[in-house]
């Protein structure tokens, strides 16, 4: 079954169409890199797929269901621009909070496990406020992976990360793909993203200009997709 499907999605801001009839598909076990210029609608599209905002026309299906359904939300993981963890709580409290919200059988155990996997177990009781940038980002990654989502949505994941966090994220994403999960990410960092991606979609002014498998040529020359499909 298709993991993520956008079927003729339109999104208006007032009368201005930010997305125009976007079609998108991602099968389980694949990683789709969503590329495009600033203002092309990447974030808007990802937020609709994640259920944060509603499509004006058309629909998004996650394993055939609406993204806002409770069961579907359980299967989605999200990393956005902010880290989405609380400054006033400790790393462990944050993760066990989200463990409870996602109704994990043992939230504390899951929290510990993911603190270890992201290398934060030593600072588990430190408040997030006191964390360095890199630690905060790793905690954000742990929060997104905590409930073992089958679809991961990442909005510009590599932009704000430091080297160590990038390494952690890339390893986790590779593992996830190997386990048959789906990854959809929007990105500027073509090189990092294209290494991971199995598929590429290019958005141009709210329209899908290209969608297909990632080829070796794209990795060698990241500007290639833009050159062939991106310009007007």
């Amino acid at each position, binding site marked *: 079954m298709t993991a993520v499907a956008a079927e003729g999605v339109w999104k208006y801001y007032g009368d201005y169409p930010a997305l125009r009839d976007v079609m998108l598909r991602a099968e389980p076990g694949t990683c789709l890199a969503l590329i495009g210029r600033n203002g092309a609608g990447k974030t808007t599209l990802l937020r609709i797929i994640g259920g*944060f*905002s*509603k499509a004006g026309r058309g629909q998004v299906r996650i394993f055939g269901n609406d993204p806002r359904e409770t069961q579907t939300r359980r299967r989605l993981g*999200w990393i956005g621009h*902010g880290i*989405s963890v609380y400054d006033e709580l400790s790393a462990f409290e944050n993760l066990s909070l989200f463990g*409870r919200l996602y*109704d994990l059988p043992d939230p504390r155990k899951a929290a510990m496990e993911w603190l270890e996997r992201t290398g934060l177990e030593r600072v588990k009781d430190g408040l997030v406020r006191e964390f360095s940038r890199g630690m905060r980002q790793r905690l954000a990654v742990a929060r997104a992976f905590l409930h073992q989502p089958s679809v991961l949505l990442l909005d510009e994941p590599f932009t704000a990360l430091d080297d160590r966090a990038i390494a952690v994220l890339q390893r986790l994403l590779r593992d996830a793909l190997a386990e048959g999960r789906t990854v959809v990410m929007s990105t500027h960092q073509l090189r990092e993203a294209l290494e991971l991606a199995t598929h590429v979609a290019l958005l141009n002014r709210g329209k899908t200009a290209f969608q297909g498998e990632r080829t070796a040529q794209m990795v060698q020359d990241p500007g290639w997709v833009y050159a062939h499909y991106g310009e007007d």
Partner: protein
Amino acid sequence: MDFFREMWVITRKDLRAELRTKEAINASLAFSLVILVLFSFAFDPTEKETVSMSGGLLWIVFAFAGTLVLNRSFAREVPNDCLDALVAAPISGAALFMGKALANFLLVLAVELVSLPVFGIFYNVHWTSHFWSLMLVLALGTWGLTVIGTIFSALTVNIRLRELMAPLLVYPMLIPALMSAMQLSMDLIAGKPLGGENQIWLRLLVAFDVIFTALSLVLLETVLVG
């Protein structure tokens, strides 16, 4: 997961985050004390006069001080985009709203329970004659305040001038609830029991709470997911 557990998780998170920094609750407490002192200059606090003004005075203090807590409710979720994580979590919007409202309710109630004896001491008013009835009115009035404050905090979470807009919208909306709470508190402090003439105000207060709680629960998802 059942509704009440989801709600409780949110409530506990909000309370824990607030009690760790105590930003809002300290500001609110200090503010309520300052207004109580300021009011003593507005009129000569002889006992008889004070009793007849007590309801109004108390609820104006509560409404002003409460807004400081309530404004923070969803604003707290803005740094780090925490609101996204809550919206994405598989809990119902109703549980999210009730959880936040309950946390706010407890915080505002705590501030009120501190300012009430202070009011009694400063203004030399014997306010405990119908203690439990007064607590009931306090709870009902505070719930009305909390519901409106919480939903409007969600409404204004992403707009500029948030701190200015919210009170402007909240106070006119609250007038009926504040009026009933003032009337009832005044009667109770003056020694009149609940029931009889002021029954109608109790009903109004309950109706206000019920109507706006229901409306908020219905509309919260619309407010958060656009």
